[in-house]
Each structure stands twice: as C-alpha cells, then as structure tokens.
C-alpha cells in the first residue's frame, strides 16, 4: 500500500507539473488504430516503426518483423477487457490460434498454465510445467514466474507453499495497448532461451501529448450452477450393492468394519437433508474500476493509472482482490536522447478455499479421516465457523519497472533498458485446535521471485538505394534471477488465542529466539534460495529488396549459470524470409488487398531453470523417506548424500534446444473484408534432460540424461470476415482461430524406445500426453469364466489369478497374464484442436458479441468416479487420498456406466488407468455474450472532448456442450486426471461502462 501511496503522490506531482492540453503535436501512437481491428493493417513501413521523434521509446525490434509474422498473433485488448478476468491466462483463453490455456479451477487467483504449440515436455510434475510456460514480456521487461523449487519440501504437491497466487494476475487490460502471441522463432529469437516456448508480448498504453482521461468500470454477479446433492442414504445404498453381491453377511472379512458414518440410518447429520450447498455455493459480486490520466508535451509526458478489481468465486467464499497502479513517464531533454521509466505495481489478496485436502497438505498432518464432513447445513456451518477462530491470509505484491535510455542519431539508434520484475508473496495461517483433532497450527511464509534484466541494443539503418535496405542490430542481455523463501510452521500452540509463532526476544535469555508458544520440537523452519544468471549476445541483420522480399538472420550466443562450465554457451542461428506476393504478382488484382508468404527456420537453446545440473556430481542433505521428506539429519547432524531420490547428475549435461521451422501465408481479400492467415509449424525440442529410471542398484531412482526429443507439428489458422461491412446499418464480423497440434516423442536418452515413469508410458512415436490403460471388456461373473492358459494357470493380473468379480481385462499379447504389456496408449490430456469463434453483430449503436471457445480431441480420466467406486481402498487407508470433501455429497458422473466389480479384490478393479474411465472431454463453450451500446456521439454533443462512451452488459460462461459425464471438462489439471477438485468457473453477469475524454 505504501508503494501505491508513493506512486499516487508522484502521479499527482507530475500532473501538477506538466500542463495538459498541449495539442501542438499529438503524434502519440493512436489507440484507435487498434480498435476494431485485431488484424492490424500493415500501414507503417520498416522505417517508420523505429523511434520517429515522438517522446517515448519504441522497440527497435520491429523493423521488418511485421512482414515476417503471422497476422493472427495480435490480439485486441479492448475486446479482451470485456471479460471480467483476473489473470492474463483468462484473458487469452481461446483468443489466439496456437495458444492453449488451462484453467483447472474457477477459484480466483489460482495458478493457470499456457502452452504455445503443445507441450515440449511430458507433464509429470510442477517442474515440467514451469519449463513449458511461455515467456511473458511486459514493455520489454521479461516477467518471472514462481519457481517450483519449493515443492521439494512438500509431502503433498497440490499447491506450492506460500500464497500460490497466479503471478500473471498483474495485467490490467485497461492499460494495455497491444498483446501479441509470438509463436515461432522468427519473432521469439530476440527474447532468447527463456522464450523458447513462445513469447507473449504485452505493450502498455503509451502516454500521449494530449491530455486524456479514461475511466471504465464494471459490476457483476458470479453465480453458481445448480448441483444435485446426496446424503448418507445414497452412499449407503451405493455401497450396499457391493456388500450384497460379494459378502455373505455384510462383512467382507470378520475384521473389517463398515464406516461408522453410514452405519446409523437415524443419524441426522449424514442421513438427514443434504443442504450443505446453501453454505458452500454462493453468488459473489465482482467488479472492476480503472482510471487513467495522461498528458504532457512533446518533450515530456506521462500516464498514470489506478485500478481495483474484485474477482469472486462461487464456492467456499473464495475470491481475490487486486489493487493496481501504473505510472510511466517519458522525457526528451535533447532531441536525440530519450529517457523513459515505468512502474507497474499490483497487490493481490486472495481468499482461498477451505478444502480439507488443501488444508491438510499445507498442515502436513493427516488426522483421522474415517468420517467425512456431514452434508447437513447445520453441521457444515459449524465446521466452517471453526475457520473463523484462525486465519489464512494470502498476499502477493507484483511489481514491474523499467528505466530505458534511448539515443536516436538518425540512422543509428541505441536503447538501453534496465528492467525489473519482482513478485513476493506472504501467507500467514492459523488453524484452531478444533480443525485438527485438538492440535492447532500456525504457519508463516514469505518468498519472492525476482528477475533483473539489462538489455542493450544498437541498430543501424543502411539504405544502399531505394531497392536495397538494410537494418543491423547488435544486442546484449544480462539477466539475474533470484528466488527465495523462508517458511516455518508449528503445531500445538499453547492455546487458540495466541495465533503467532512467538519467539523469545531477550538476547540474554538462554532461550533466545526459541519458540515460546509452540513446542520447539514441533516448529519446523525452512530457508531456501536459488539463483541463476544468463548472459546473451546477438546480432541481427535485416534486408529488404524493393519492399517485396525481406530477409532476416539472427545469430545469438547464450550462456547460463545453470549449465555446466564446460557447456556454458549455446550458439544458435535463426533465419526468416518474407515475400510480398501482392506487390510482386497481384499488384493489379483488386480482389486481393494483400498477400504475404513467410518462412523461418532456426534453433534456440532451452533455458534450464534448476541450478543443480550445473554442479555435476553432487551431494544433497535429503535423507527422507515415503511420508517424511523433511528428515533434518541423523542424530542432530546434517548429512550429505548423493541425490538418490532426485536422480544422479553427471558431468556431461548439455543445453537442450529447440529446432523450429514455420511456413505461413496471410492475405486479405475483397477490400480487407476477409483476412486470413495460415501457419504450419514444426517444432522439435531436443536433447532435453530426463530422469531415466535406472541405477537402482546404485541407490538412484533415476539418472538424469540429455537426449529426450519431442516434436510438435501443427497448423494455426485464423480467419476473420467482415460478412456485413460496418458501413451498413447492420454489420457482422466473424472470426475463427484454431490450432491443430500433433505431439510426438521422437527420442529418449540413451537410445531407449520406451520408458515407464510412474503410471505413464513414454514411447517413441507417441504423444507424451497419452494415458496408459488396460482395456476393460466386462466382468467375470464366475471363476470358471476366467480363461485358463496352456500351462493350466488361470489368467492373472500381475501374478494374481483373476476371480469372479474381477474385470475382464483384455490380454492383448495373449500370454495368459495381464501385465503392463497389455496396456495401450490412448487419449490426449491436451487437446488436438483448440480455438475460439467470435462474432460481432452491430446494429446502429448496438453491438452484440458472441465468443465461443472449444477443445476437440481431448480426453480425461474420470478419477473422481474411479475413487467413488474404489471406496474400499480409499477409506481403508488413512492418507491424503482418503480425504472426502464436502463436495463428496454432490452427485457427479454417471454411476450406471460402471459394472460392480469386487472392490476388495487385490487386482485393483477400479484403478483409474483403464479405458472405462477415459472419456471424451471435447467441449464447446459460449464464453462471452455481450451487448454494447455506444453513447459517444450523444455525449460528444454535450462535451466536445468526449472521445468514447460505451456501456455494455455481458454474460460469461453461458453454457458448455460436452459429452463428458463429470464436472466441467475444463476443470482438470495438466495431468488430465479429473479428481473433482476443480471449482466451478462461474457464470458471471456484468454491466460496464468505458469512457475516454
């Protein structure tokens, strides 16, 4: 808050210092240019895009880029801002061909993931997820994500410790001038190895020289979808079927026990009305308010903005509040020199869910879980009120800033940028005794992620003559990344009134700095940090011939401290070329307004995020075991061992890299009424590190080796058509974007052709996001139905003979035994086709917008249903998998789809990895339905300087069409296993206004 106050003060100071209304030179980059046109017309030439003397520093990188880029890359922030989103991912979902966004929960502010052109790694854990995310660059400042190294101390890895807030919730769309999704190397190369997964380039509104005030706001209501609740009777009836079928007297064995909570049908808590949903699901108000002011002269200008936003979840009282402010100032003390500085500061407060699982994984202690929370409202609200005795405060500050110096000497330009992105999070927790079987819990987390970048680039324009034009640039980038956290938690405080882990503060006391409220032996403290630096140099040459042909070549060298000293540098070239067919061949054809062909090919290093690989053979302090990862040492001494569980690291690890090629064409036809672009791409990420399970007789779970390669090939298609042009009374704009992607594993380390990691099979020639499942063909009703092989043995599953009540799994290789050999790869966790379909209908001042989002060729494993049927094993254990949330009492899925196997069988009849649980999860959603009324002209009559005045109403997440029988098919994590934990993405109704004057 202090930061915001300071910036506000600065803003006021500046508005006071610089007079408004100097209209002498309003050469600011027009916002209107972008409005209504996501397919930006290419009007500026190579020359113009470099700093033209306007205050402010334009990136020099654009010289011929536009000719070499797909036109489908650019998005229109004005349109995106209609969506009441909190995160960048939510804004971008379904908006750009080739960018796939995963939103596994509707809980506001949670982490979401993006994939550009498929995944370049098998998504096994948070590590791979982090390594596959695109780089987001805000005004030249590369943003830093939340490093997954903290997962190392977590027994349960559902959420990272700390606030686990989406660090891309810092983009206020009202401040954004343009968003570009850069997918191929021709455009991402200058961002280096961290941009190997693609780059999302965000440019904020630049200050103008004319005084301008903008204001926009919306208020809305997020509403839950209705649910069907069930109670103990339903569950009891469900289970009784199994007992009736497989047990003689209601007990499977004399010593097993029927769950207490289902045993007593008079127990009102479980057998009474199941009305918990009244307390769990609620409508939430959402709103957003943004205002900005900009102005200045041709020598100095500024823009200042403030915003606040509330995003509400419809379940469990979740929500997130964001306060943001941004200030940018440009100064031009002499004609050839420009200074520019920006600060963008955000604070996000998150109200998190109260899931039992998430709480226990934070608390790291499993109480007795034999009875779930009762479905009755009274009992449930009693449970909820226990949370009020404690707190769970999550706060994240995200700050970006830069200082840029620009020197413009005509043909020669130089820009130096010092950029900083810093995000810090705190989470303070106190859970009262009543929540954890009379043990209270306190925890404090503070951590930050920080990236400082020094980016220098010099460009030189050289025009040999009218036909031959050159542009040369050289650049250097140094990036310093630092990630750190300190974390402590404690159990068994002396009472529920002291909610802090207090330490003895008297240095003279023998107990100095020892905990005084919580037991010393039950206070756990963690400190960790990791740093890595990157140094890069590049040279780039662009050449255009008669404005018809353009060529560009980049050669860069990158060094990372996360690479071993002997392989620190990676050198990579990228070439691209463009051909303006219209100018060359169709100059006289009036039906074709433009037609460009582009191609690029090149190589780029892939950045390694973990610092341990650079160290070669190494030692760690880990001596944990299953269920206890934080064993501090032996006999009170720290230990050092080889990284047996993390995997052996040798001396010969090298850079991973990506080879990419693309071929694209874009054209506009019929006086720009139809714009289309098609891009075919080939992307192969090679020599990537993978922990190959081996070396068990040397104590290792795996050996880290180079050599994994994954190829993604596909097509991005974007078409927009002005079906009824705007001049008419009634107009209709329609656009579709879609991506078809095919993923394929092309190499594994050491020439292996397949590898089993956990319950996944990585097989060369197959996609890495597939499920590895048994084929289920029914049930054996009697023992005699089980086939007997030639040796006289019954068909077995992993050595256990199958019996009546076991599934009839298909013995694919016919060897008389069901083993891993009989599993097949099926389905895809990531969609093969995804995209959006947008329509705008206008009538007079009215505009009706319809945004559809779709995924095709995507499957999910309905783990939630598998868990329901596997109740014997889930409840027999007392571990994190035995947790049943309040949503256990919600009816989801189609019970009739599954046969009644013997749940006590040791062949795991309800294991999720069989084809009966794999379901088609393709879907089509109407994501936004909006109606806008433009009042600009009406207000212009009253006040001349009104530039825009619009009001709109919209509904978001209107409906979903899918065959999937579980919850919303979007609500699934990267693994593709639907555990049922995704919180509803709410249907939100909003009313908003946008004003510029």
């Amino acid at each position, binding site marked *: 808050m202090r930061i915001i106050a300071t910036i506000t003060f600065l803003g006021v100071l500046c508005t006071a210092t610089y007079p408004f209304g100097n209209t002498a030179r309003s050469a600011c980059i027009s916002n209107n240019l972008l409005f209504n046109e996501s397919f930006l017309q290419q009007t500026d030439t190579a020359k113009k895009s470099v700093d033209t003397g306007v205050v402010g520093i334009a990136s020099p990188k654009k010289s011929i880029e536009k000719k070499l880029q797909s036109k489908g890359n650019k998005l229109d922030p004005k349109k995106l801002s209609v969506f009441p989103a909190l995160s960048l991912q939510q804004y971008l979902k379904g908006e750009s061909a080739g960018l796939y966004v995963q939103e596994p929960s509707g809980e506001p502010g949670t982490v979401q993931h993006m994939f550009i052109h498929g995944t370049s790694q098998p998504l096994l854990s948070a590590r791979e997820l982090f390594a596959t995310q695109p780089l987001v660059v805000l005004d030249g400042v590369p943003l830093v994500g939340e490093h997954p190294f903290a997962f190392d101390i977590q027994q349960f890895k559902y959420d990272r410790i700390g606030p686990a807030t989406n660090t891309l919730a810092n983009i206020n769309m009202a401040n954004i001038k343009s968003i570009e999704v850069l997918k191929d190397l021709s455009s991402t190369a200058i961002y280096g190895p961290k941009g190997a997964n693609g780059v999302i380039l965000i440019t904020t509104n630049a200050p103008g020289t004319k005084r301008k005030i903008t204001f926009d706001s919306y208020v809305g209501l997020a509403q839950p979808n209705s649910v069907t609740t069930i109670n103990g009777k339903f569950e009891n009836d469900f289970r009784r079927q199994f007992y009736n079928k497989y047990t003689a007297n209601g007990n499977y064995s004399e*010593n097993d*026990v029927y769950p207490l909570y289902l045993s007593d049908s008079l127990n009102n808590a479980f057998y009474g009305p199941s009305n918990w949903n009244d307390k769990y699901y609620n409508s939430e108000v959402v709103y957003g308010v943004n205002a900005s002011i900009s102005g200045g002269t041709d020598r100095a200008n500024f823009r200042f903005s403030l915003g606040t936003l509330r995003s509400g979840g419809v379940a469990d009282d979740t929500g997130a509040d964001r306060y943001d402010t941004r200030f940018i100032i440009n100064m031009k003390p002499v004609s050839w020199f420009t200074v520019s500085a920006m600060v963008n500061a955000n604070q996000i407060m998150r109200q998190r869910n109260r899931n039992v699982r998430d709480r226990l994984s934070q608390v790291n*202690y499993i109480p*007795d879980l034999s009875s779930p929370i009762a479905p009755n409202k009274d009992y449930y609200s009693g449970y909820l009120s226990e949370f009020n005795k404690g707190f769970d405060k999550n706060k994240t500050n995200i700050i970006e800033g830069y200082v840029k110096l620009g*020197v413009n000497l005509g043909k020669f330009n*130089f820009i*130096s940028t010092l950029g900083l992105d810093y995000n810090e999070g705190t989470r303070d927790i106190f859970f009262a005794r009543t929540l954890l079987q*009379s043990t209270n819990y306190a925890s404090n987390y503070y951590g930050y992620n920080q990236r400082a970048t*020094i980016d*220098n680039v*010099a460009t030189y324009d050289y025009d040999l003559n009218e036909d031959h034009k050159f542009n040369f640039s050289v650049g*250097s980038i*140094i990036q310093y990344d630092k990630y750190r956290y300190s974390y402590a938690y404690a*159990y068994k405080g002396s009472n529920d009134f002291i909610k802090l882990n207090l330490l003895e503060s008297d240095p003279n006391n023998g107990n100095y700095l020892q905990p005084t409220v919580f*037991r010393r*032996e*039950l206070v756990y403290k963690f400190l960790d940090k990791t*740093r890595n*630096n990157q*140094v890069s140099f590049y040279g780039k040459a662009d050449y255009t011939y008669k404005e018809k042909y353009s060529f560009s070549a980049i050669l860069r060298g990158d*060094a990372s*401290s996360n690479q071993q000293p002997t392989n620190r540098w990676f050198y990579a070239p990228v070439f691209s070329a463009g051909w303006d067919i219209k100018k060359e061949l169709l100059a006289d054809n009036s039906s074709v307004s433009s037609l460009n062909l582009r191609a690029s090919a090149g190589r780029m290093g892939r950045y390694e995020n973990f*610092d*341990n690989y650079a*160290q*070669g*053979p*190494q*030692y*760690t302090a880990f*001596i*944990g*075991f299953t*269920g*206890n990862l934080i*064993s*501090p*040492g032996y*006999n*009170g*001494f*720290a*230990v*050092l*061992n*080889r990284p047996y569980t993390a995997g052996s690291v040798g001396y010969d690890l090298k850079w991973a890299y990506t080879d990419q090629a693309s071929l694209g064409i874009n054209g506009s036809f019929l006086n720009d009424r139809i714009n289309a672009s098609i891009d075919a791409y080939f992307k192969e990420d090679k020599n990537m590190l993978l922990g190959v399970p081996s*070396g*068990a007789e*040397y*104590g*290792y779970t795996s050996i880290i080796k180079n050599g994994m390669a994954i190829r993604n090939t596909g097509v991005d298609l974007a078409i927009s058509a002005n079906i009824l042009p705007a001049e008419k009374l009634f107009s209709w704009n329609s656009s579709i974007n879609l991506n078809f992607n095919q993923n394929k594993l092309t190499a594994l380390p050491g020439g292996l052709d397949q590898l*089993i990691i956990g319950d996944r099979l990585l097989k060369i020639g197959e996609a890495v996001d597939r499920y590895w499942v048994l084929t289920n063909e029914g049930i054996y009703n009697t023992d005699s139905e089980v086939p007997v092989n030639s040796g006289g043995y019954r068909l077995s599953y*992993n050595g*256990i003979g199958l019996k009546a009540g076991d599934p009839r799994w298909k013995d694919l290789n016919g060897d008389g035994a069901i083993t*891993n050999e009989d599993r097949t790869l099926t389905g895809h966790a990531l969609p093969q086709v995804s995209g959006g379909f947008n329509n705008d209908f206008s009538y007079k001042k009215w505009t009706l917008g319809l945004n559809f989002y779709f995924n095709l060729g995507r499957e999910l494993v309905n783990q939630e249903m598998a868990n329901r049927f596997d109740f014997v*094993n889930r409840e*027999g*254990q007392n571990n994190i998998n035995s947790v049943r949330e309040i949503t256990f009492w919600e009816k989801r899925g189609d019970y009739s789809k599954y046969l009644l196997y013997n749940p*006590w069988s040791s062949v795991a009849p309800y*294991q999720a990895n069989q084809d009966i649980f794999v379901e088609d999860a393709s879907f089509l959603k109407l994501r936004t339905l909006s109606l806008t009324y433009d009042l600009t002209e009406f207000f212009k009559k009253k006040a001349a300087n009104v530039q825009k005045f619009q009001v709109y109403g919209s509904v978001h997440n209107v409906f979903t069409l899918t065959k999937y029988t579980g919850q919303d098919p979007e609500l699934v994590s990267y693994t593709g296993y639907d555990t049922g934990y995704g919180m509803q993405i709410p249907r939100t109704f909003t009313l908003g206004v946008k004003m510029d004057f």
Partner: protein
Amino acid sequence: MKKIILLGLIISSLFAGSCKKALDINSTRVVNENNYWNTLEDARAAIMGVYGLTRAALADNNGHWIYGDVRMGNFDSPNRQDLKAVIKNDLNASYPVVEQLSNWRRFYAIINAANIFLERIKEVKAKDARYTENNMAVDMAQVRFLRAFAYFYMIRIWGDVPFIDSSDDGNFENRPKTDQKAILEFVQSEMLAAAEVLPYRYSANDIQQPGNYYNEGSGRWDGALVRKLSAYGVLAHVAAWQGKYVDVINYSKIVLNDYGKASMGYVSTQDLTDRQGLFYDKKSNQLLAFGFVFGHQDATYVGNIESLTLAEPVVNKNIPDIFVPKDSILSIFKETNDGRFNIDTTGITHSQLYFTNFAGRYPIFSKIKCIQGGSTDPTFRIFSSAILFTRLEDITLLRAEAYAVLGETTLATNDLNIVRQRRYNVDHMGLQNSSSTDYVAYSRAMHGTLIEAIFKERQKEFMGEGMRWYDQIRYHKIKQNNPAFLHLIETGGIYWPIAKDLLAQNPLLKQNPFWK
C-alpha cells in the same frame, strides 16, 4: 565528436556485461565435488548420511514392520487391503505400498553411500589434520558394518541380490544377482573386521576410540551408532539365519560377556513398554537401533510401529491399521504371571502393558508408544520411537536357541530364564514381585519343549519389533514339521518378489521363481 563518444559508450556498455563471474554460481541447494570431502565436517556429514539412509530404508513405508511383523504374523488389518495382502503373503498384489516394498533401491542407496565413503574418505584425511587416523578407522568400520548390514537385510527379504562393492560413479553398470551364500560370507567377514575396530562406546575413553568423537560427549552418541557389540549381535543373527549355531554362540557370547563395558543391561517390562523407555530416544540398551530423536526434531508420522498399531484410546485415530486379534492374544499370552499381558479365567486383564482396550473390538497393541516426546497426549500422532534391530534380550534368546539346537539344554534354559526372570515376575494382580528371583522359571511340563518355549518367548518379547517373520523361518527350519511353510522355504516363497520397476530397468535380473 558527440557521435563518437556516444558510440564508444554504447559499445562499451554492450560488452561490459560479459563478466564470467555472473555465470559461476555455487548452488546453495547442493554441494558439488569441489566443495566436499575436504574437512572433518564433511566426513561427519557423510557418515551420518549413511546412517540416515539406513534409517530411511527401514522406515520407508513402515517396511521394517511390514516385512517383519505383518507378513504372515500375529497381526490382522481391519481395513487396509494392502496390509491384508501382505498378511496373506499375496505379495504381487497391486497396491502402492506392496509395490514399493518390493523395490530394493533404498538399500542400495546405503551401499552406494558406503562405497563412496570408503573410496573417498582418505581425501578428508589428506586435507584436514583434525581428522585423525583413529577417527577414520572407526568411521570406516561403521560404514563397512552398515554396508554389510544392508546386504544382510536385503538377503533376508529377497534372497539372491546383485552384489556391488564399488560406487561405479557415473557408470552404473547393471549387474545380475549373486548367490546369497557368497554375499553372506562377505557380510560376515566385513562385520567381523568392523567389530574388531569398533569401540564399546563413543566418547567414553575406549582405547579403540580415545577422546571425544567428533567433539561431542558420550551423551550425544550413546545408542546412536554402531558399537563393537552391535556388530557381534548382528553377526549372531547372520549366523543364525544360515543355521551356523556354533557361530551364534561364539558371537553372542561376546555380547553377553561384555555388555557391562558397553554400559548396557537387561530391561524391565516396565522400561520395555514405557513411553520414554527402551524405544524412546537413543539409549545404550538399544544394541543396534536407528533413532528418531524428538529433541533433534526427528519425530515422524510414519516410519514407526506406532503409526500402524496405535488408535483410540491411545491416540485419536479411529481404527488401527493393524492389531492382534483377541483370539491370538489369548493363545499367545497363555502363561500366568506375565508382566506384559495376562488375563485371568474370568476375563479380567491384570497386566496390560502390551495391549490397551482389550475389551474393545480392536485391542490396541500399545507396547511401543513413544508419542511426541514420550507424552500421553493422544491428540497429535507424531512418534519418536527408534527402529530397534536387536537388543540384549534378543541376543540372549538367540544364544538359548543355539544351545537348544546343539543340545545344551541346561545352558539354553539358563539363557531363557534370564529373560523370563524379568517378564514372569508379577503376581496374579499384575503387581511386580519384590524379589528379583521370584519369577516363573521355564519348565518343560508347563511350557513345552525348549525350542518351542524359546520361540514362544520370542514371539511375545519381540512383538512389534520386526522379528516375527524371520523367527518363523528359523523355527520351521529347525522343526521341519510344517509342510506348507517348508514348501515356502524350498521354493523361495519366503522372499519378496522383485519390483516390476527394477526388472524393467535391469534386464539381467530375473524374478524370484516363486513370484513368476
């Protein structure tokens, strides 16, 4: 001119950043080869690492007890299907715990760490003068013992296993299984060599370990490390496993003669079952144990017997994972005057140190219950009992077994009575007799043959200490009267299957024939 200056500035700023320093970062999360094997502290971190890995290997998935107590043992499980499978010896069952327990990787981590230690420790000796010759000798002896111990433990579980005695760093060549007899020869010679070098106690002015070990007093080390008698005690087990009962006598004699030097003694029933008794913390009486010391913040939710056995009313968990059914309790604890547990004919329990809530549906096996720091607080299930591999009573009964097998009935009876003296010394109300000689001694008429009495005693005395399974194998080898069990022994059904993951990684391995 202006341009030239500017150009100069620009060019210098472009390349000024190329400092190599930025690229050399020593990770704060791992230690590389340059920074290790240099100092005394490195040696300490390394040897404690081998201990820590040993503890982790035994604690992982509660393996020590699932291998030793749950498999075809005294326990039954109310609800855990995976444990039910182990109880039934159904070890191919598809449960994560069963699959992970059939993986031997964590034992090879001990062996690899030991091999690296033995190969590299001389570097510390060369670089750090504080690291004395004696310190190194004692360290190496401990590490050699732990490596041999890991092999012994694995052989009891899998039979033949690959034999690896070098770190083979970075190469990791796959090896086939080696005959367990050859490995047991190695185990025995290594343990003997270690036993000769090891002291009776650490930091206690033993001639074989003068001065303070790693600058810490004896209180820090007592019970935490392998001592001379630990080595002989385990050697007795190694010999018994091979049926070499003469060797058993030789090794156990050393333990039973010299335990005074090691500041040890027999424990009372009270001490055995106390919350802060034998199993709590680290103690000299733990002949070989790997401790989870509460004061060192080692206490853990899993990796102990308590997490399996304890439940209401001892801790606030509804149903125990495993329990001894009432019928079994009654048939095992049939003798009167037993301080651990006895019940009179009217069904009233007088002494219930071993079992709580006998009247309930699930009697709670509460012999070992080191909750938190040995407290009675049932609300937080974190435990600090040590993984105890052997103790004086074990070695005594082992010697009794050896004497009995070799026909030395009197000597065997004497040894058995040493233990009985401390257990069958309560009156019919469960109160301890005042005189230490007032106890029920072994008599053939009352307690059956000597062998049976010894093994019965073992069953009671070491319940929940991971011994039962191996005792049964020895018992049936001696008795030769249970065809079903002998079939298991002959066909390798007493071993565990080798995990699928291991077979997939190392094509030289063959599944144990019984489990194919």
